[in-house]
């Protein structure tokens, strides 16, 4: 049984970029990435909340940081931001057109995030709370660093 599951998952993973990139309806992609980002927001809250306690719990930080690490390993730029999924008719998105005008800069911001996620992972593994706190701060900066330029300001 486990084998079949593995195969199914493998096929799904292999197909997913194709499905999202070629989907007829760009809103499918937009909703997928918004769901992904919300997931990251929720995870970030979980991690950050530990530092609101008098004694942050490392295990909780590790658990909450899992999605943050997982997303850093996804081909997010290709899967979430294909051409044609920017703001336009019938597309509700906060992604700004500048993403597709300056793709290198956008990719660089995502690289910042990947690095921050890896650094956070190492700090968590080391069990050093103060180092982890610093890494969480840095990761927050990579979120804002991208949003400042590439995401629409909320009104």
């Amino acid at each position, binding site marked *: 049984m486990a084998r079949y599951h593995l195969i199914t998952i493998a096929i799904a993973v292999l197909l997913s970029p194709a499905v999202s990139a070629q989907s007829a309806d760009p809103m499918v992609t937009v909703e997928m990435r918004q769901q992904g980002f*919300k997931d*990251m*927001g*929720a*995870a*970030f*809250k*979980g991690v*950050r*909340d530990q*530092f*609101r*306690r008098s004694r942050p719990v490392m295990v909780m930080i590790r658990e909450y940081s899992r999605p943050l690490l997982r997303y850093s390993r996804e081909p997010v730029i290709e899967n979430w931001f294909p051409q044609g999924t920017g703001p336009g008719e019938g597309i509700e998105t906060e992604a700004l057109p500048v993403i597709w005008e300056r793709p290198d800069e956008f990719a660089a911001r995502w690289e910042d995030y990947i690095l921050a996620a890896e650094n956070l992972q190492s700090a968590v593994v080391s069990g050093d709370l103060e180092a982890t*706190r610093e890494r*969480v*701060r840095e990761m*927050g900066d990579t*979120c*804002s660093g991208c*949003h400042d330029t590439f995401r629409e300001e*909320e009104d």
Partner: protein
Amino acid sequence: MTGAHVFQRRKVWDLPTRCGHWLLLLLFCGSRWTAENGEMQWHRYMGYVMAGVLVFRLYWGVFGSTTARFKHFLRGPASTLAYTRELRRRARQPAPAGHNPLGALSSTVLLFLLLAQVCLGLLAVDVDGMEAGPLSFYVSFEAGRFAALWHERVFNLLLFFVAVHIIAVMLYWLLGGQNLIVRMISGRDDQPGSATELWFAPLWRSVLGVALAGILVWYLQSLDIPL
């Protein structure tokens, strides 16, 4: 105005009520400004002070001077309606000491909404999971987002009722030539000599309320632990 009245200058609002009122206005504008400009640490600080002022106002509404007391100004729907029907005539008469039934309603609604706004803010979290009220770690991301959604909706409600509040004050000015703004600053007004006696709480009574408010503000800011 009828000639039968003899007017005399007399105290209507005590100092704590006036200070509270203008503090609420300042904090309301400040909260709005800091939220719009992403100054979220200051936004939270203002919220804590707002919570303190509100708690003081509740205390003063029970233990304070006559015109500040809920018992004095909260009217039932019947008398509020009756008053509303005669509004055009009433606005030309001297404003009663303290709140008229409509003013009381608008103040109570504003107080209640501000209280709700502060509570929602304490639980709110932004979409990135970064900026959040100090109590939001007790609730899930989804619940915190829900609080933030209502934080936004209640703010819009507040804008509406603040507008109603200001329009009512303006009408008194335009129709009756009575400046209630000056009255809320100086605390004094020309009242008919026949008006009922008002009691003013000695200032020491406010000390307990200020202490209560202070403890609350101190407690809330102590929960606001930076990353």
